[in-house]
Protein backbone atom coordinates (compact mmCIF):
# COMPACT_ATOMS: atom_id res chain seq x y z
CA UNK A 1 0.00 0.00 0.00
CA UNK A 2 2.73 2.36 1.04
CA UNK A 3 4.63 1.46 -2.06
CA UNK A 4 1.74 2.46 -4.32
CA UNK A 5 1.33 5.72 -2.46
CA UNK A 6 5.02 6.39 -2.80
CA UNK A 7 5.08 5.79 -6.53
CA UNK A 8 1.92 7.86 -6.98
CA UNK A 9 3.70 10.63 -5.15
CA UNK A 10 6.67 10.29 -7.43
CA UNK A 11 4.55 10.32 -10.59
CA UNK A 12 2.60 13.42 -9.60
CA UNK A 13 5.84 15.12 -8.66
CA UNK A 14 7.41 14.29 -12.02
CA UNK A 15 4.29 15.49 -13.80
CA UNK A 16 4.46 18.79 -11.96
CA UNK A 17 8.11 19.27 -12.88
CA UNK A 18 7.31 18.54 -16.52
CA UNK A 19 4.51 21.12 -16.55
CA UNK A 20 6.88 23.72 -15.12
CA UNK A 21 9.52 22.83 -17.69
CA UNK A 22 7.03 23.11 -20.54
CA UNK A 23 5.90 26.52 -19.31
CA UNK A 24 9.52 27.70 -19.20
CA UNK A 25 10.49 26.27 -22.54
CA UNK A 26 7.42 26.78 -24.69
CA UNK A 27 8.25 30.35 -25.87
CA UNK A 28 11.69 29.15 -26.95
CA UNK A 29 10.27 26.15 -28.70
CA UNK A 30 7.74 28.36 -30.48
CA UNK A 31 10.42 30.80 -31.58
CA UNK A 32 12.73 28.08 -32.86
CA UNK A 33 9.89 26.18 -34.52
CA UNK A 34 8.60 29.24 -36.34
CA UNK A 35 12.02 30.45 -37.43
CA UNK A 36 12.16 27.48 -39.80
CA UNK A 37 8.60 27.81 -41.12
CA UNK A 38 7.95 28.94 -44.70
CA UNK A 39 6.41 32.41 -44.91
CA UNK A 40 2.86 31.28 -45.68
CA UNK A 41 2.71 28.86 -42.76
CA UNK A 42 3.78 31.37 -40.13
CA UNK A 43 0.66 33.49 -40.44
CA UNK A 44 -1.65 30.52 -40.83
CA UNK A 45 -4.46 30.15 -38.34
CA UNK A 46 -4.93 27.71 -36.71
CA UNK A 47 -1.17 27.22 -36.38
CA UNK A 48 0.43 24.70 -38.69
CA UNK A 49 2.34 21.96 -36.87
CA UNK A 50 3.84 20.16 -39.84
CA UNK A 51 5.73 21.92 -42.60
CA UNK A 52 8.86 21.71 -44.73
CA UNK A 53 11.63 23.39 -42.73
CA UNK A 54 13.39 26.20 -44.57
CA UNK A 55 16.33 28.47 -43.89
CA UNK A 56 14.72 31.30 -45.86
CA UNK A 57 13.97 33.40 -42.79
CA UNK A 58 17.60 33.37 -41.71
CA UNK A 59 18.87 34.07 -45.21
CA UNK A 60 16.44 36.97 -45.49
CA UNK A 61 17.63 38.45 -42.21
CA UNK A 62 21.24 38.40 -43.33
CA UNK A 63 20.68 39.54 -46.91
CA UNK A 64 17.97 42.17 -46.59
CA UNK A 65 19.45 43.66 -43.46
CA UNK A 66 23.07 44.20 -42.46
CA UNK A 67 22.45 41.72 -39.67
CA UNK A 68 26.03 40.54 -39.67
CA UNK A 69 27.10 44.12 -38.90
CA UNK A 70 24.72 44.24 -35.95
CA UNK A 71 26.06 40.93 -34.74
CA UNK A 72 29.63 42.26 -34.94
CA UNK A 73 28.62 45.48 -33.17
CA UNK A 74 27.20 43.45 -30.32
CA UNK A 75 30.30 41.27 -30.21
CA UNK A 76 32.78 44.15 -30.26
CA UNK A 77 31.04 46.21 -27.62
CA UNK A 78 30.24 43.35 -25.26
CA UNK A 79 33.68 41.73 -25.60
CA UNK A 80 35.76 44.84 -25.02
CA UNK A 81 33.58 46.07 -22.19
CA UNK A 82 33.72 42.70 -20.50
CA UNK A 83 37.48 42.32 -20.79
CA UNK A 84 38.22 45.84 -19.59
CA UNK A 85 35.58 45.51 -16.88
CA UNK A 86 36.97 42.25 -15.52
CA UNK A 87 40.54 43.58 -15.61
CA UNK A 88 39.50 46.61 -13.57
CA UNK A 89 37.42 44.49 -11.20
CA UNK A 90 40.06 41.89 -10.34
CA UNK A 91 42.25 44.15 -8.20
CA UNK A 92 39.22 45.78 -6.62
CA UNK A 93 37.61 42.46 -5.70
CA UNK A 94 40.91 41.18 -4.31
CA UNK A 95 41.42 44.26 -2.22
CA UNK A 96 37.85 44.16 -0.87
CA UNK A 97 38.24 40.48 0.04
CA UNK A 98 41.69 40.81 1.58
CA UNK A 99 41.37 44.12 3.44
CA UNK A 100 37.66 43.70 4.31
CA UNK A 101 36.72 46.95 2.58
CA UNK A 102 33.01 46.57 3.20
CA UNK A 103 32.34 50.20 2.43
CA UNK A 104 33.65 49.87 -1.12
CA UNK A 105 31.60 46.76 -1.75
CA UNK A 106 28.57 48.65 -0.46
CA UNK A 107 29.24 51.42 -3.00
CA UNK A 108 29.40 48.80 -5.74
CA UNK A 109 26.17 47.19 -4.65
CA UNK A 110 24.40 50.54 -4.50
CA UNK A 111 25.74 51.31 -7.97
CA UNK A 112 24.18 48.09 -9.24
CA UNK A 113 20.83 49.09 -7.78
CA UNK A 114 20.87 52.62 -9.21
CA UNK A 115 18.22 53.17 -11.89
CA UNK A 116 19.97 53.64 -15.23
CA UNK A 117 18.03 56.76 -16.14
CA UNK A 118 19.74 58.62 -13.30
CA UNK A 119 23.03 58.60 -15.18
CA UNK A 120 21.86 58.04 -18.75
CA UNK A 121 20.35 61.51 -19.20
CA UNK A 122 23.57 63.30 -18.14
CA UNK A 123 25.75 60.85 -20.07
CA UNK A 124 23.73 61.57 -23.19
CA UNK A 125 24.30 65.30 -22.74
CA UNK A 126 28.02 64.85 -22.04
CA UNK A 127 28.60 62.48 -24.97
CA UNK A 128 26.58 64.75 -27.19
CA UNK A 129 28.85 67.67 -26.31
CA UNK A 130 31.96 65.56 -26.93
CA UNK A 131 30.62 64.15 -30.20
CA UNK A 132 30.75 60.65 -28.75
CA UNK A 133 27.17 59.60 -29.45
CA UNK A 134 27.01 56.55 -31.70
CA UNK A 135 30.65 55.54 -31.31
CA UNK A 136 32.11 52.24 -30.15
CA UNK A 137 34.31 54.07 -27.68
CA UNK A 138 31.44 55.66 -25.79
CA UNK A 139 29.42 52.46 -25.67
CA UNK A 140 32.35 50.34 -24.53
CA UNK A 141 33.06 52.85 -21.79
CA UNK A 142 29.41 53.07 -20.79
CA UNK A 143 29.00 49.31 -20.62
CA UNK A 144 31.62 49.32 -17.87
CA UNK A 145 28.67 50.47 -15.75
CA UNK A 146 27.28 46.98 -16.19
CA UNK A 147 30.48 44.93 -16.15
CA UNK A 148 32.49 46.54 -13.33
CA UNK A 149 30.02 46.40 -10.40
CA UNK A 150 28.79 42.96 -11.47
CA UNK A 151 32.24 41.44 -11.90
CA UNK A 152 33.67 42.93 -8.74
CA UNK A 153 30.71 41.85 -6.64
CA UNK A 154 30.86 38.30 -7.99
CA UNK A 155 34.64 37.97 -7.74
CA UNK A 156 34.85 38.88 -4.04
CA UNK A 157 33.79 35.41 -2.74
CA UNK A 158 36.33 33.68 -4.99
CA UNK A 159 39.17 35.69 -3.46
CA UNK A 160 37.76 35.21 0.02
CA UNK A 161 37.91 31.46 -0.47
CA UNK A 162 41.64 31.48 -1.14
CA UNK A 163 43.34 30.67 2.18
CA UNK A 164 45.63 33.45 3.37
CA UNK A 165 48.18 30.82 4.45
CA UNK A 166 49.14 30.53 0.80
CA UNK A 167 49.85 34.24 0.69
CA UNK A 168 51.93 34.10 3.85
CA UNK A 169 53.95 31.28 2.32
CA UNK A 170 54.55 33.41 -0.73
CA UNK A 171 55.56 36.41 1.36
CA UNK A 172 58.02 34.34 3.40
CA UNK A 173 59.60 33.20 0.17
CA UNK A 174 60.23 36.86 -0.59
CA UNK A 175 57.34 37.69 -2.86
CA UNK A 176 55.92 41.18 -2.79
CA UNK A 177 52.22 41.77 -2.09
CA UNK A 178 51.62 42.58 -5.71
CA UNK A 179 53.59 39.51 -6.72
CA UNK A 180 51.42 37.41 -4.42
CA UNK A 181 48.35 38.75 -6.18
CA UNK A 182 49.66 37.92 -9.64
CA UNK A 183 51.38 34.63 -8.87
CA UNK A 184 49.08 33.07 -6.28
CA UNK A 185 45.66 34.67 -6.23
CA UNK A 186 45.01 35.21 -9.90
CA UNK A 187 45.78 31.63 -10.96
CA UNK A 188 43.69 30.24 -8.11
CA UNK A 189 40.74 32.49 -8.93
CA UNK A 190 40.78 31.51 -12.59
CA UNK A 191 37.58 29.40 -12.52
CA UNK A 192 35.79 32.32 -10.88
CA UNK A 193 37.21 34.75 -13.41
CA UNK A 194 35.87 32.58 -16.22
CA UNK A 195 32.35 32.50 -14.79
CA UNK A 196 32.32 36.23 -14.10
CA UNK A 197 33.60 37.00 -17.59
CA UNK A 198 30.81 34.99 -19.16
CA UNK A 199 28.07 36.46 -16.99
CA UNK A 200 29.31 39.96 -17.61
CA UNK A 201 29.39 39.30 -21.34
CA UNK A 202 25.82 38.03 -21.25
CA UNK A 203 24.62 41.14 -19.42
CA UNK A 204 26.37 43.46 -21.88
CA UNK A 205 25.06 41.43 -24.80
CA UNK A 206 21.51 41.66 -23.45
CA UNK A 207 21.44 45.39 -22.83
CA UNK A 208 18.91 47.48 -24.67
CA UNK A 209 18.49 50.84 -22.94
CA UNK A 210 22.13 52.00 -23.12
CA UNK A 211 22.42 51.44 -26.84
CA UNK A 212 18.94 52.84 -27.45
CA UNK A 213 19.93 56.14 -25.86
CA UNK A 214 23.66 56.41 -26.59
CA UNK A 215 23.96 54.37 -29.78
CA UNK A 216 22.85 55.10 -33.32
CA UNK A 217 22.96 53.85 -36.87
CA UNK A 218 26.64 52.90 -36.82
CA UNK A 219 26.68 51.11 -33.49
CA UNK A 220 23.32 49.39 -33.61
CA UNK A 221 23.57 46.13 -31.65
CA UNK A 222 21.46 43.03 -32.15
CA UNK A 223 18.74 43.83 -29.60
CA UNK A 224 18.22 47.32 -31.00
CA UNK A 225 18.20 46.02 -34.58
CA UNK A 226 15.71 43.32 -33.65
CA UNK A 227 13.48 45.92 -32.04
CA UNK A 228 13.58 48.04 -35.19
CA UNK A 229 12.54 44.95 -37.12
CA UNK A 230 9.34 44.95 -35.18
CA UNK A 231 8.54 48.65 -35.47
CA UNK A 232 9.64 49.52 -39.00
CA UNK A 233 9.19 47.01 -41.79
CA UNK A 234 5.94 45.23 -42.34
CA UNK A 235 6.01 43.00 -39.26
CA UNK A 236 7.72 40.20 -41.12
CA UNK A 237 7.09 37.41 -38.64
CA UNK A 238 9.54 35.00 -40.18
CA UNK A 239 12.43 37.47 -39.89
CA UNK A 240 11.48 38.37 -36.35
CA UNK A 241 11.51 34.75 -35.20
CA UNK A 242 14.81 34.19 -37.02
CA UNK A 243 16.32 37.33 -35.48
CA UNK A 244 15.17 36.30 -32.01
CA UNK A 245 16.70 32.86 -32.55
CA UNK A 246 20.04 34.38 -33.56
CA UNK A 247 20.16 36.59 -30.47
CA UNK A 248 19.11 33.77 -28.17
CA UNK A 249 21.42 31.08 -29.47
CA UNK A 250 24.75 32.21 -27.94
CA UNK A 251 23.08 32.71 -24.57
CA UNK A 252 21.32 29.34 -24.73
CA UNK A 253 24.59 27.56 -25.54
CA UNK A 254 26.41 29.34 -22.74
CA UNK A 255 23.74 28.54 -20.19
CA UNK A 256 23.56 24.89 -21.17
CA UNK A 257 27.26 24.26 -20.83
CA UNK A 258 28.04 26.36 -17.82
CA UNK A 259 24.84 26.13 -15.85
CA UNK A 260 26.36 24.86 -12.62
CA UNK A 261 28.80 27.74 -12.34
CA UNK A 262 26.36 30.37 -13.52
CA UNK A 263 23.73 29.52 -10.93
CA UNK A 264 26.08 30.28 -8.07
CA UNK A 265 26.97 33.56 -9.76
CA UNK A 266 23.38 34.56 -10.38
CA UNK A 267 22.08 33.79 -6.93
CA UNK A 268 25.02 34.93 -4.84
CA UNK A 269 23.64 38.45 -4.75
CA UNK A 270 20.66 37.09 -2.89
CA UNK A 271 22.46 34.90 -0.43
CA UNK A 272 25.03 37.37 0.75
CA UNK A 273 24.20 39.97 3.33
Amino acid at each position, binding site marked *: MNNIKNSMHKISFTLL*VIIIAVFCLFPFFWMFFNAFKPAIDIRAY*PPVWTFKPTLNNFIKVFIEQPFFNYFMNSMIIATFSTIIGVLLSL*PAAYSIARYKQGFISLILLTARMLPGMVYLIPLFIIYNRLGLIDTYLSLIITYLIISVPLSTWLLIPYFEDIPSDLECAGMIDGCSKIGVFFRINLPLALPGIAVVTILSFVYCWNDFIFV*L*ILGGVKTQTLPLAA*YHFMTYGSMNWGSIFA*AATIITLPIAII*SLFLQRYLISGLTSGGLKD
Partner: protein
Amino acid sequence: MNKIINFLDRYLYIIFPSFALLVIIGLMIYPMLYSIYLSFHEWQLGALSGPLFVGFANFNKLFSDSAYIRSLSITFLYSFLCLIIEIPFGMILALILNKSFKSITWIRNIFLLPILVTPVAISLIWVMMYNPSIGILNYFLRGLGLPPSLWISSTSTVIPSLVLVDVWKWTPLVALILLGGLKSLPSSPYEAVKIDGATTFQTFLYITVPLLKPTIMAALLIRFIDSLKTFAVIYTMTGGGPAQASRTTYLFAYDTSFKYFRMGYGSAAVMVFFFILLIISFALTKLKKQT
Protein backbone atom coordinates in the same frame (compact mmCIF):
# COMPACT_ATOMS: atom_id res chain seq x y z
CA MET B 1 61.99 48.88 -9.81
CA ASN B 2 62.15 47.85 -6.18
CA LYS B 3 60.97 51.27 -5.17
CA ILE B 4 57.91 50.98 -7.38
CA ILE B 5 57.04 47.59 -5.94
CA ASN B 6 57.49 48.89 -2.43
CA PHE B 7 55.23 51.82 -3.20
CA LEU B 8 52.59 49.56 -4.75
CA ASP B 9 52.76 47.19 -1.82
CA ARG B 10 52.29 49.91 0.74
CA TYR B 11 49.30 51.49 -0.96
CA LEU B 12 47.86 48.32 -2.45
CA TYR B 13 44.61 48.73 -0.53
CA ILE B 14 44.11 52.15 -2.15
CA ILE B 15 45.48 51.50 -5.63
CA PHE B 16 43.69 48.21 -6.24
CA PRO B 17 40.10 49.35 -5.75
CA SER B 18 40.72 52.74 -7.32
CA PHE B 19 40.22 51.62 -10.94
CA ALA B 20 36.78 50.22 -10.30
CA LEU B 21 35.89 53.18 -8.10
CA LEU B 22 36.96 55.62 -10.80
CA VAL B 23 34.58 53.95 -13.22
CA ILE B 24 31.75 54.27 -10.74
CA ILE B 25 32.53 57.85 -9.84
CA GLY B 26 33.05 58.95 -13.43
CA LEU B 27 30.17 57.12 -15.04
CA MET B 28 27.61 56.97 -12.28
CA ILE B 29 28.16 59.32 -9.36
CA TYR B 30 29.26 62.38 -11.32
CA PRO B 31 26.40 61.98 -13.82
CA MET B 32 24.00 61.49 -10.91
CA LEU B 33 25.09 64.79 -9.38
CA TYR B 34 24.71 66.38 -12.79
CA SER B 35 21.22 64.93 -12.94
CA ILE B 36 20.36 66.50 -9.59
CA TYR B 37 21.67 69.82 -10.91
CA LEU B 38 19.57 69.43 -14.06
CA SER B 39 16.42 68.67 -12.12
CA PHE B 40 16.47 72.23 -10.77
CA HIS B 41 16.81 73.67 -14.26
CA GLU B 42 14.65 74.14 -17.27
CA TRP B 43 16.53 73.03 -20.34
CA GLN B 44 15.48 72.00 -23.79
CA LEU B 45 18.43 70.21 -25.39
CA GLY B 46 19.33 71.88 -28.66
CA ALA B 47 17.92 75.23 -27.55
CA LEU B 48 20.28 78.18 -27.90
CA SER B 49 20.13 79.12 -24.24
CA GLY B 50 21.71 76.93 -21.58
CA PRO B 51 20.03 75.49 -18.50
CA LEU B 52 17.88 78.04 -16.69
CA PHE B 53 17.62 77.78 -12.92
CA VAL B 54 13.99 77.36 -11.90
CA GLY B 55 14.23 76.10 -8.33
CA PHE B 56 11.59 73.56 -7.44
CA ALA B 57 9.38 74.41 -10.41
CA ASN B 58 10.04 71.06 -12.13
CA PHE B 59 9.01 69.16 -9.03
CA ASN B 60 5.91 71.26 -8.52
CA LYS B 61 4.95 70.65 -12.10
CA LEU B 62 5.54 66.90 -11.72
CA PHE B 63 3.19 66.53 -8.79
CA SER B 64 0.40 68.18 -10.74
CA ASP B 65 1.23 66.32 -13.95
CA SER B 66 -1.46 63.66 -14.17
CA ALA B 67 0.58 61.69 -16.73
CA TYR B 68 3.44 61.42 -14.24
CA ILE B 69 1.24 60.45 -11.30
CA ARG B 70 -0.43 57.85 -13.51
CA SER B 71 2.97 56.49 -14.59
CA LEU B 72 3.96 56.09 -10.93
CA SER B 73 0.79 54.19 -10.09
CA ILE B 74 1.25 51.96 -13.15
CA THR B 75 4.85 51.24 -12.18
CA PHE B 76 4.04 50.32 -8.61
CA LEU B 77 1.02 48.27 -9.62
CA TYR B 78 3.19 46.37 -12.08
CA SER B 79 5.88 45.79 -9.49
CA PHE B 80 3.37 44.77 -6.82
CA LEU B 81 1.69 42.25 -9.11
CA CYS B 82 5.06 40.79 -10.10
CA LEU B 83 6.11 40.37 -6.49
CA ILE B 84 2.94 38.79 -5.14
CA ILE B 85 3.08 36.18 -7.89
CA GLU B 86 6.82 35.59 -8.18
CA ILE B 87 7.70 35.20 -4.51
CA PRO B 88 5.05 32.55 -3.59
CA PHE B 89 5.50 30.69 -6.88
CA GLY B 90 9.26 30.85 -6.54
CA MET B 91 8.88 29.43 -3.03
CA ILE B 92 6.72 26.56 -4.29
CA LEU B 93 9.18 25.83 -7.09
CA ALA B 94 12.10 25.88 -4.67
CA LEU B 95 10.31 23.48 -2.32
CA ILE B 96 9.60 21.13 -5.21
CA LEU B 97 13.19 21.26 -6.40
CA ASN B 98 14.49 20.77 -2.89
CA LYS B 99 13.00 17.27 -2.88
CA SER B 100 16.11 15.66 -4.22
CA PHE B 101 15.00 13.70 -7.23
CA LYS B 102 17.15 13.20 -10.26
CA SER B 103 15.24 15.74 -12.30
CA ILE B 104 16.75 18.59 -10.37
CA THR B 105 19.82 19.31 -12.50
CA TRP B 106 18.07 19.47 -15.83
CA ILE B 107 15.23 21.58 -14.50
CA ARG B 108 17.81 24.02 -13.17
CA ASN B 109 19.33 24.20 -16.65
CA ILE B 110 15.92 25.06 -18.01
CA PHE B 111 15.42 27.73 -15.37
CA LEU B 112 18.53 29.54 -16.52
CA LEU B 113 17.19 30.14 -20.00
CA PRO B 114 14.43 32.67 -19.25
CA ILE B 115 16.70 34.45 -16.77
CA LEU B 116 19.65 34.88 -19.09
CA VAL B 117 18.05 35.36 -22.48
CA THR B 118 18.06 38.83 -24.03
CA PRO B 119 14.95 40.79 -22.96
CA VAL B 120 14.33 42.10 -26.47
CA ALA B 121 14.28 38.56 -27.88
CA ILE B 122 11.78 37.64 -25.18
CA SER B 123 9.61 40.62 -26.15
CA LEU B 124 9.66 39.60 -29.80
CA ILE B 125 8.54 36.07 -28.99
CA TRP B 126 5.80 37.14 -26.58
CA VAL B 127 4.47 39.83 -28.92
CA MET B 128 4.03 37.13 -31.54
CA MET B 129 2.39 34.78 -29.06
CA TYR B 130 0.12 37.53 -27.75
CA ASN B 131 -1.18 38.47 -31.21
CA PRO B 132 -4.97 38.56 -30.75
CA SER B 133 -5.92 37.16 -34.15
CA ILE B 134 -3.27 34.58 -34.99
CA GLY B 135 -1.19 34.27 -31.82
CA ILE B 136 -0.68 30.85 -30.30
CA LEU B 137 -2.00 31.82 -26.85
CA ASN B 138 -5.47 32.65 -28.12
CA TYR B 139 -5.39 29.40 -30.05
CA PHE B 140 -4.79 27.60 -26.76
CA LEU B 141 -7.51 29.58 -25.00
CA ARG B 142 -10.01 28.71 -27.69
CA GLY B 143 -8.90 25.09 -27.51
CA LEU B 144 -9.71 25.10 -23.80
CA GLY B 145 -13.09 26.62 -24.53
CA LEU B 146 -12.14 29.98 -23.05
CA PRO B 147 -12.80 33.36 -24.67
CA PRO B 148 -9.75 34.79 -26.48
CA SER B 149 -8.02 37.79 -24.91
CA LEU B 150 -6.69 40.97 -26.45
CA TRP B 151 -3.55 40.66 -24.27
CA ILE B 152 -1.26 43.67 -24.78
CA SER B 153 -3.64 45.32 -27.25
CA SER B 154 -6.24 46.31 -24.67
CA THR B 155 -5.90 48.84 -21.86
CA SER B 156 -7.46 46.48 -19.34
CA THR B 157 -5.26 43.44 -20.04
CA VAL B 158 -1.95 45.04 -20.94
CA ILE B 159 -0.55 45.19 -17.40
CA PRO B 160 -1.46 41.59 -16.46
CA SER B 161 0.00 40.45 -19.78
CA LEU B 162 3.28 42.26 -19.12
CA VAL B 163 3.31 40.87 -15.60
CA LEU B 164 2.95 37.37 -17.05
CA VAL B 165 6.12 37.88 -19.10
CA ASP B 166 7.94 39.17 -16.02
CA VAL B 167 6.71 36.20 -13.99
CA TRP B 168 7.82 33.81 -16.69
CA LYS B 169 11.27 35.40 -16.85
CA TRP B 170 12.00 35.98 -13.17
CA THR B 171 10.18 33.35 -11.09
CA PRO B 172 12.99 30.88 -11.92
CA LEU B 173 15.54 33.30 -10.43
CA VAL B 174 13.50 33.66 -7.24
CA ALA B 175 13.24 29.88 -7.10
CA LEU B 176 17.01 29.45 -7.52
CA ILE B 177 17.76 32.02 -4.82
CA LEU B 178 15.32 30.41 -2.39
CA LEU B 179 16.60 26.95 -3.29
CA GLY B 180 20.10 28.09 -2.36
CA GLY B 181 18.68 29.25 0.96
CA LEU B 182 16.80 26.00 1.56
CA LYS B 183 19.93 23.95 0.90
CA SER B 184 21.85 25.82 3.57
CA LEU B 185 19.21 25.41 6.32
CA PRO B 186 20.26 23.32 9.34
CA SER B 187 18.61 19.92 9.59
CA SER B 188 18.28 19.71 13.38
CA PRO B 189 15.06 21.77 13.73
CA TYR B 190 13.43 19.54 11.15
CA GLU B 191 14.39 16.40 13.04
CA ALA B 192 13.09 17.93 16.24
CA VAL B 193 9.63 18.79 14.89
CA LYS B 194 9.43 15.43 13.15
CA ILE B 195 9.69 13.78 16.56
CA ASP B 196 7.01 16.16 17.82
CA GLY B 197 4.76 14.94 15.00
CA ALA B 198 4.38 18.15 13.02
CA THR B 199 2.67 17.96 9.63
CA THR B 200 4.47 18.97 6.46
CA PHE B 201 2.52 22.23 6.32
CA GLN B 202 3.24 23.07 9.96
CA THR B 203 6.92 22.38 9.41
CA PHE B 204 6.91 24.72 6.44
CA LEU B 205 5.06 27.49 8.27
CA TYR B 206 6.87 27.38 11.61
CA ILE B 207 10.34 26.18 10.64
CA THR B 208 11.12 26.81 6.98
CA VAL B 209 9.59 30.27 6.58
CA PRO B 210 11.14 31.86 9.69
CA LEU B 211 14.55 30.33 8.97
CA LEU B 212 14.40 31.34 5.33
CA LYS B 213 13.17 34.87 6.00
CA PRO B 214 16.50 36.64 5.25
CA THR B 215 16.73 34.89 1.88
CA ILE B 216 13.09 35.63 1.09
CA MET B 217 13.64 39.29 1.94
CA ALA B 218 16.75 39.40 -0.25
CA ALA B 219 14.85 37.93 -3.20
CA LEU B 220 12.01 40.38 -2.57
CA LEU B 221 14.38 43.34 -2.51
CA ILE B 222 16.17 42.30 -5.71
CA ARG B 223 12.94 41.69 -7.58
CA PHE B 224 11.31 44.83 -6.24
CA ILE B 225 14.08 47.11 -7.45
CA ASP B 226 14.52 45.32 -10.76
CA SER B 227 10.81 45.23 -11.56
CA LEU B 228 10.52 48.97 -10.95
CA LYS B 229 13.34 49.48 -13.43
CA THR B 230 11.86 47.24 -16.13
CA PHE B 231 12.34 49.06 -19.39
CA ALA B 232 13.40 46.89 -22.33
CA VAL B 233 10.50 44.45 -22.20
CA ILE B 234 7.77 47.07 -21.70
CA TYR B 235 9.22 49.56 -24.15
CA THR B 236 9.67 47.00 -26.92
CA MET B 237 6.38 45.18 -26.35
CA THR B 238 3.97 48.06 -25.96
CA GLY B 239 5.93 51.32 -26.12
CA GLY B 240 3.77 52.39 -23.19
CA GLY B 241 0.49 51.83 -25.01
CA PRO B 242 -2.28 51.20 -25.69
CA ALA B 243 -3.52 54.67 -24.71
CA GLN B 244 -0.50 54.92 -22.38
CA ALA B 245 -1.93 52.22 -20.13
CA SER B 246 1.49 50.64 -19.68
CA ARG B 247 3.54 53.82 -19.59
CA THR B 248 5.70 53.30 -16.52
CA THR B 249 7.77 56.04 -14.92
CA TYR B 250 10.85 54.81 -16.73
CA LEU B 251 9.07 55.19 -20.06
CA PHE B 252 7.73 58.59 -18.99
CA ALA B 253 11.27 59.75 -18.19
CA TYR B 254 12.58 58.32 -21.45
CA ASP B 255 9.92 60.10 -23.51
CA THR B 256 10.42 63.39 -21.71
CA SER B 257 14.19 63.34 -22.07
CA PHE B 258 14.80 61.65 -25.39
CA LYS B 259 11.68 62.35 -27.41
CA TYR B 260 10.94 65.90 -26.27
CA PHE B 261 14.49 66.59 -25.05
CA ARG B 262 13.27 68.28 -21.89
CA MET B 263 16.36 67.36 -19.91
CA GLY B 264 15.50 69.25 -16.71
CA TYR B 265 11.99 67.92 -16.41
CA GLY B 266 13.09 64.39 -17.33
CA SER B 267 15.83 64.46 -14.68
CA ALA B 268 13.37 65.67 -12.07
CA ALA B 269 10.99 62.84 -12.96
CA VAL B 270 13.78 60.30 -12.50
CA MET B 271 14.95 61.89 -9.25
CA VAL B 272 11.52 61.70 -7.60
CA PHE B 273 11.21 58.08 -8.73
CA PHE B 274 14.70 57.31 -7.43
CA PHE B 275 13.90 58.93 -4.10
CA ILE B 276 10.77 56.79 -3.66
CA LEU B 277 12.75 53.69 -4.63
CA LEU B 278 15.46 54.56 -2.09
CA ILE B 279 12.99 55.00 0.75
CA ILE B 280 11.25 51.70 0.07
CA SER B 281 14.52 49.78 -0.36
CA PHE B 282 15.79 51.30 2.86
CA ALA B 283 12.63 50.21 4.67
CA LEU B 284 12.93 46.70 3.23
CA THR B 285 16.59 46.46 4.24
CA LYS B 286 15.66 47.53 7.78
CA LEU B 287 12.98 44.86 7.81
CA LYS B 288 15.52 42.33 6.57
CA LYS B 289 17.95 43.21 9.35
CA GLN B 290 15.26 42.79 11.99
CA THR B 291 14.64 39.18 11.06
